[in-house]
């Protein structure tokens, strides 16, 4: 066996535990009286509506306008865009074409303690009448002229990289806008959502190709927000809240604390069980298991900025439990295999070498099938929605969460429970005082 240097065990173990501590508790500091979060911990997890409660609302076109399916779809996509841009990813959104309704469900928003559901619903439904008006308030053009709007960065030669909103008009809109910009050259044209002025840009030149730029000291956020609002306003009808309800938390904050206790007790039991039954390999497995859990938690809390904001639901917890089960199993398979090798008379080093090698195929095959399940679920219930052609857009984020935590958990398992666990095991075996077969699951002398 190629033995790994002794200090490696301590370095890996300390790194894993340090990582776990930051992933669980986060890293927070006080800037004056305000708490700043530099690394998110468990307390920053956004819980799904099935755990913490949330909002459900039904929208319909105002004044009983008969919306076409396409219009309903675009209204839906606007709500969807707004949800995503607000950091809400775990929502359910249904369009009911028969009765022209859009039903939306979403959990409490991240970082918000005093969440007002009515305000949130109104914010989403604010797809009201968009208009372009001159300085005396006369309407020149409405949202139906707009094809799309998006935020961008000014890349022209003498620019300073300012954020701006790019406005694309449809053919009719382009013609109309050309004459408007000609008439109101060097004058301001207000962009209004209902009676609220969103922006009041000044016409810099005649725009005849139907593609305008709105500039004006925007931050990236402001530019995105304005583009979203303009998109929402391009619909020929406004959305009205037909009904809304705040779903009271089914578990509530206390219950989350209770589940926290359950998790801690379960982890302690597993660690004790593994260490007592399998001695050194069990102890090493326990460290790896904590690392695996920490990695999964990190993926859920946005410890690493590359991960999307994610909502934890009951199915998400099920995915986590399954992946932890797979992680414990991988280590049990290995430890049992090492025991067997001892039984057939192998030496300490050979037993560990053979045991880890012979158990690998079972672990890989077992985990690969679980990966298949996870990926299918993410494809079906995630943003790609592969079956939507057959079953319509009845997405539900909660099952997507299962696939997500499961996939992340299995990947974490390969990193921690398989790779680092083995590195640690092959390193710790070099410590003289531990070099007894009985400490690795072999029979005593």
């Amino acid at each position, binding site marked *: 066996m190629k033995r790994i240097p002794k200090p490696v065990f301590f370095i890996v173990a300390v790194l894993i535990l340090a990582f776990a501590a930051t992933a669980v508790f986060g890293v927070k500091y006080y800037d004056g009286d305000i708490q700043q979060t530099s690394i998110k911990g468990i307390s920053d997890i956004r819980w799904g509506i099935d755990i913490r409660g949330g909002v459900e609302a039904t929208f319909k076109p105002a004044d009983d306008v008969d919306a076409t399916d396409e219009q309903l779809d675009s209204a839906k996509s606007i709500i969807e865009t707004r949800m995503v841009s607000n950091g809400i990813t775990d929502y359910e959104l249904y369009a009911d074409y028969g009765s022209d309704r859009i039903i939306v469900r979403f959990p409490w928003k991240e970082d918000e303690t005093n969440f007002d559901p009515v305000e949130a619903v109104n914010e989403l439904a604010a797809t009201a009448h968009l208009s372009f008006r001159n300085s005396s308030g006369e309407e020149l053009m409405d949202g139906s002229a707009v094809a799309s709007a998006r935020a961008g960065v000014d890349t022209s030669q003498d620019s300073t990289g300012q954020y701006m909103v790019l406005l694309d008009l449809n053919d009719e809109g382009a013609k109309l806008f050309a004459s408007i910009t000609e008439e109101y050259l060097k004058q301001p044209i207000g962009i209004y959502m209902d009676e609220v002025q969103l922006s009041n840009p000044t016409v810099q030149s005649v725009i005849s190709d139907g593609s305008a730029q709105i500039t004006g000291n925007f931050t990236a956020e402001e530019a995105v927000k304005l583009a979203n609002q303009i998109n929402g306003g391009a619909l020929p009808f406004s959305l009205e809240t037909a009904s809304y309800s705040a779903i009271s938390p089914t578990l509530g904050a206390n219950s989350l604390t209770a589940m926290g206790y359950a998790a801690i007790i379960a982890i302690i039991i597993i660690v004790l*069980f593994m260490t007592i039954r399998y001695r050194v390999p069990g102890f090493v497995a326990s460290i790896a298991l904590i690392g695996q859990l920490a990695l999964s938690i990190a993926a859920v809390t946005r410890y690493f900025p590359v991960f999307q904001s994610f909502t934890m639901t009951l199915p998400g917890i099920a995915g986590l439990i399954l992946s932890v089960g797979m992680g414990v199993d991988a280590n049990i398979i290995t430890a049992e295999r090492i025991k067997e090798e001892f039984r057939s008379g192998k030496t300490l080093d050979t037993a560990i070498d053979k045991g880890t090698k012979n158990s690998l195929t079972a672990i890989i095959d*077992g985990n690969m099938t679980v990966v298949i399940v996870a990926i299918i679920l993410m494809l079906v219930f995630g943003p790609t929605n592969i079956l939507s052609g057959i079953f319509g857009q009845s997405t539900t984020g909660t099952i997507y969460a299962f696939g997500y935590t499961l996939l992340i958990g299995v990947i974490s398992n390969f990193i921690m429970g398989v790779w680092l666990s083995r590195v640690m095991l092959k390193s710790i075996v070099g410590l003289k005082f531990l070099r007894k077969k009985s400490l690795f699951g072999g029979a005593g002398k």
Partner: protein
Amino acid sequence: MKKTLNFIGKSKVFFGISLAIILIGIICNIIFGVTLDIQFKGGAIISYGFVGEVDDAALKSAIQEATPGNTVTFTISQDILSNTEENDAYTIAIQFSGETAISTDTQKTITDTLTEKFPENKFEYQETTSVEASMGLKFLLKCLTAVAIASILMVIYVTIRFKRIGGLSAGVMALVALFHDVAMIYFMYVIFRMPIDSNFIAVVLMILGYSLNDTIVIYDRVREERRIAGPKEDIAVVFNKSASAVMSRTIATSVTTLVAIGTVYVVATIFALDSVQGFALPMMIGVISGCYSSLCIAGPLWVFWNKRKEKN
């Protein structure tokens, strides 16, 4: 050396036990039927919280009066967490079956009626769930299709990876074991009268992964033992040897998982968290079933299939 257990010899007993449980489940299913959650079935539930005693009949007629033309049923459950010293707190869930979601007007009428007619009970609006029937059904079908696709792909994976020990037979028998486990969870829902909701789908998915992993660990061992023993060796003997070798692993893993989920269940019971309880219990049943089906159902069936093939 460890003792070799005779799994194949006792397979009739195992099949008998499973068939008996499935039979009991089917009978219960016929007697009790199965309830689908609003999520799948469509319809609406409006919940109110209230305190103190209330006359059921008066309540029913008041609600029925407020919503003519709707079939209304309701269930009242005690809300332990909100009990006060003077009065017990309750939650009433009013259920409307029907094709469409209920209107806000209806909801308002009910709220007004309840607050007017029973002022001392302090009815307080809690929540509404309403789903159109066709949307719910589509969602259910989508869930089932996803499960089916995942199952087929898993069988294909097993067939390819275990070509040396019969490939397709290994895949199909693994699938039979999965059906067995899903049936167990389903009957668990039927017997405990729990409505089938998206948590059911999540538990089923978890157990599919868990049980298949159990089966694969055994297959992996059979593949290895077969390589050592050579093709001449009786596969029943090979299987018994392999299953016995992985027994301690299977038990250790299952016990660990059971203890972990059991802890969640106990804590959920102490804190009266219904949704978590209803989630942990079927999961525990699934873990036991998954461990059992791999050793006692998938394995022996695989042995019989291959023995028959050898004869022909």
